[in-house]
């Protein structure tokens, strides 16, 4: 099917997210706004305005009631999805680079940037779902990861344990209560970890990195299960539910893009076979690097947001579901 082009941002995309039903798509960008779209036709439902700087990250709770966003104006905000009202604002000394909610939307974890004498910090807040405008100002837990700063994070299934990706390429598990590093894989990647997304059941995750590779890790013991090596720095990686594919996106560094044509830039979404680690297809379209990719929770469509300021929503054709690549093999999701 023809992709739907969402032209609601004036600057490059930073993160996009489907809600748990997959009917809504949230997108945030460097132009300070968050948009929400109907994923099936690309109609814009609304905008969350109030941020005063690049919105780096966005996450929506499983009930699609609350939305959290982290921005370069040093705030973490809680929004009401249905009305677009900002319910609460937490303020920090530095920018929020990543925020993620837990499985049932009762806690949020965020990473703040290491800058101006402040260390990179990871904070966990409880969300008061009953009285959303009354949140505790102080974090439930807070700690500073030692060593390379964290760039991405997510909750795991184990309570109070988060998984993080670091600038050095390290992937680690932290106990937020004590700030203790439970386990780590120093050599998960050899360059900055740019994205981390969980599988549908949260038992494994995929990371992408500037070292041109994406990897699937077991969230329990951080074992690298699969590696997908491409020829371009990667900005995002996502796991397609129900079909054995992973989607990788990236491209030449944003700073060197002006000197290269779209052909050379490798601005394509790459489909890789999840188990065989082979590239199976590419989707062209963006004329800048792809910054973020998200797959519909039912696996019926995917969206990619690029440095070019566009979000492209692709609904998969029948052949995508029917194709029996590599013969008739049953692969557990």
């Amino acid at each position, binding site marked *: 099917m023809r992709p739907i082009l969402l032209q609601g941002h004036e600057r490059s995309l930073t993160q996009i997210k489907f809600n748990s039903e997959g009917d809504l798509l949230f997108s945030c960008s460097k132009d300070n706004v968050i948009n929400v779209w109907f994923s099936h036709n690309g109609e814009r439902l609304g905008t969350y305005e109030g941020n005063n700087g690049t919105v780096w990250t966005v996450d929506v709770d499983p009930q699609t009631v609350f939305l959290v966003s982290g921005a370069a104006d040093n705030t973490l905000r809680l929004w009401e999805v249905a009305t677009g009202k900002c319910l609460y604002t937490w303020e920090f000394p530095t920018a929020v680079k990543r925020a993620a909610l837990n499985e049932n939307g009762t806690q949020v974890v965020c990473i703040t940037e290491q800058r101006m004498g402040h260390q990179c910090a990871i904070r966990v807040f409880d969300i008061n779902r009953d009285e959303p405008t009354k949140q505790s100002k102080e974090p439930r837990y807070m700690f500073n990861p030692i060593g390379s700063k964290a760039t991405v994070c997510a909750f795991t299934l184990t309570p109070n344990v988060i998984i993080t990706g670091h600038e050095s390429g390290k992937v680690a598990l932290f106990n937020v209560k004590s700030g203790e590093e439970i386990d780590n894989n120093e050599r998960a990647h050899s360059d900055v970890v740019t994205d981390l997304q969980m599988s549908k059941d949260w*038992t494994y995750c995929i990371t992408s990195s500037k070292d041109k590779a994406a990897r699937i890790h077991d969230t329990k013991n951080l074992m690298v299960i699969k590696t997908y090596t491409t020829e371009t720095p990667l900005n995002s990686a996502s796991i397609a539910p129900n079909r054995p594919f992973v989607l990788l996106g990236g491209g030449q560094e944003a700073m060197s893009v002006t000197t290269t044509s779209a052909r050379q830039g490798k601005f394509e979404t790459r489909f890789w076979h999840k188990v065989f680690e082979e590239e199976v297809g590419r989707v062209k379209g963006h004329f800048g690097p792809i910054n973020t990719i998200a797959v519909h929770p039912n696996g019926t469509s995917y969206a990619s947001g690029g440095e070019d300021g566009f979000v492209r929503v692709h609904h998969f054709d029948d052949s995508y579901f029917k194709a029996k690549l590599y013969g008739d093999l049953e692969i557990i999701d």
Partner: protein
Amino acid sequence: MPEATDSVDLTIDYSDIEAKYQIQYDDGFDNVLVVDGLPIIDESKLERLRAKITKEFSKKGMSVKQEDIYMPWDNTAGKSKGFMFVEFKNYEDAELALATMHNHPFDTKHTFKVNRFADIERYTELDETYVEPDIEEFTPREHLRAWLADPQGRDQYVTYRGDEVLINWHGKPSQCELAYKPDWKDFLYVAWSPLGTFVATLHRQGVRLWGGPSWKPQQRFAHPLVKLIDFSPCEQYLVTWSNEPIVVPDGAIQGPQYFSPDDEGNNIAVWDIKSGDLLRTFSTQNEGDSSSGKKQMQWPALKWSPDDKYVARIIPGQTISVHELPSMYLQGKKSLKIDGVVDFEWCPLGDKDKEEASASTKSTKKIRENMLVYWTPEVLNQPARVTLLSFPSRTILRQKNLFNVTECKLYWQNQGDFLCVKVDRHTKTKKSIFCNLEIFRMREKDFPVEVVELKDTVMDFSWEPKGERFAIVSSNDPNLGNPGSGVTIKTDVSFYQLDRGKNDFRLLRTLTSRTSNAIRWSPRGRHVVLATVGSSSKSELEFWDLDFNSDDVHRKEGQTDWGSGIQLLGAADHYGVTDVEWDPSGRYLATSASAWTHTLENGYAIWDFRGQELTKQIQDRFKQFIWRPRPPTLLSKEKQKQIRRNLKEYSRTFDEEDAAEESNVSAELTALRRRLVDEWNAWRSLRKKELGEDRLHRSEENHESLEEIEVWIDEVIEQTEEVLAN
């Protein structure tokens, strides 16, 4: 007390100490040389000879006074004895003279033989009884052509990426494997010798050759900071060049394999590959010619005759110097003086010529002499001229005058059957340029010339190897000549073929509006690849077959339709391609994008002759891909014909192998995939099970802790019945 000691001393034997500390007296003849090989003369010529000798010495930078020369005289015959003694100021001068004047050609008949005076005495006193020398035990060397004995007949190629060199086998998918991973360090690049025997690496210290099945070092040539190398066609000699002039520091090792102080300032060296000896050095700077010093150097600077017998060097505008090998003296002791000469080429030897040459050792049949062709531009009233010269007889075989010439390029067909001179001509106003192809037929009497006139500028010309066809890339694009970035020049590609009936070259077909700028003929002929190289926006490859209709074995003359056999087999694209090379068998084509030219999608790809991609490797910092060349076949003509006749039988066995291979591969692949899927599924089901237990466990926990017992208790406290009275 002193007296006592004196008397005692007399009895002591000091002979041992005296022997130990005895002063070695100079025998005083260190500075005297014996020069042999002089002409025998009578008294009348003595003065002139002395004068000539001193002049000859001073030419080489050694001053010898007449009175230092002593010439022994045969008084009975009244003639000189043909040798002389020369006394030098000191030992060093004498050593220098020995090195430079030994084997110095005095005139056409006489060559100096120089020896130390002391040596002569020593050799006359030599013990003449024969002592059996110890014979070193023979250790067989590795066979340098072992790779040709590969049972699958595969070809090799070398890749250079980052700091890593790999030598690979290329064959069927299952037979592509690593042949060798050398640990060569710190070198500029690698190069194969023309017959594939050696691979050369260019280091700071010089060139190294490697070869044999274990890739042991085979030879080395100490030319510091070497930048370019060139092998002679039969792999006997090597030419090296460095932009830095040779410097020989004090105390440097001396020997046949090293530079001597004479070589200082030169920057081209010729070496013998087998012995590793330095044969001669040259300078690329031409004395007293400052204007040409700035011009781009031509490489190869020395051009080899196809039989390795001669090597020629051009001094533009003046001479072509032809040196004999292995002595490296000027052939005939003089250069070819040609006013205004710009460029020349040796005629290659065809297979036929080689056969005749090897047969001629038995029979006395005259074989074709070496030939070279050169051209001179228009000077004053003299027209430009292309001259065909045989060598070493130096007879002019053919000359052709040309007018309005801006530039000539000389292209030999690889068998030496044809020579094409591409002449860029200008109109009278000198505003526009057009092109003539002057084609010499070398196998016919008097070398008839035929002209193909073209309106456009010809950018590239290429003969079909072993064939009678050629392809040209021409263009009338206005952008030609002012290359800007991002400009892709539109070109036409035309094929010409010799029409046997009419005996001239006729156009087969023109492919118009293309971007191709490189023609790559398969080394076996027939197939040709047109490529767009060095463009940032286009990178097409087109695979053409020129004999699509006809049976490849019996190509008939004057076939049905002229030019009907040309067929496009496939088109492909390799982004950013910089190099295109056929493998020696003409079955595969390799394209590579080298990091030396740009840094986008470096890597290489291998295609079959139909344009099907077999493998593609995108690798950072990829630099070089070179197929290993093959020497000519050892099979005789008859044997080759026989094989060709029975090709069906051979091909059957190959087909069987291919079929077996294919099923094998697919079986292996399916098994591998099955295994991967099983592993994945096992891991997934384990985690899923754990997850299920976990969830169950947790929900139970939750259930216990949060159990709210809600009990609704209806308590009847009172029941009253009231009867409302009416």
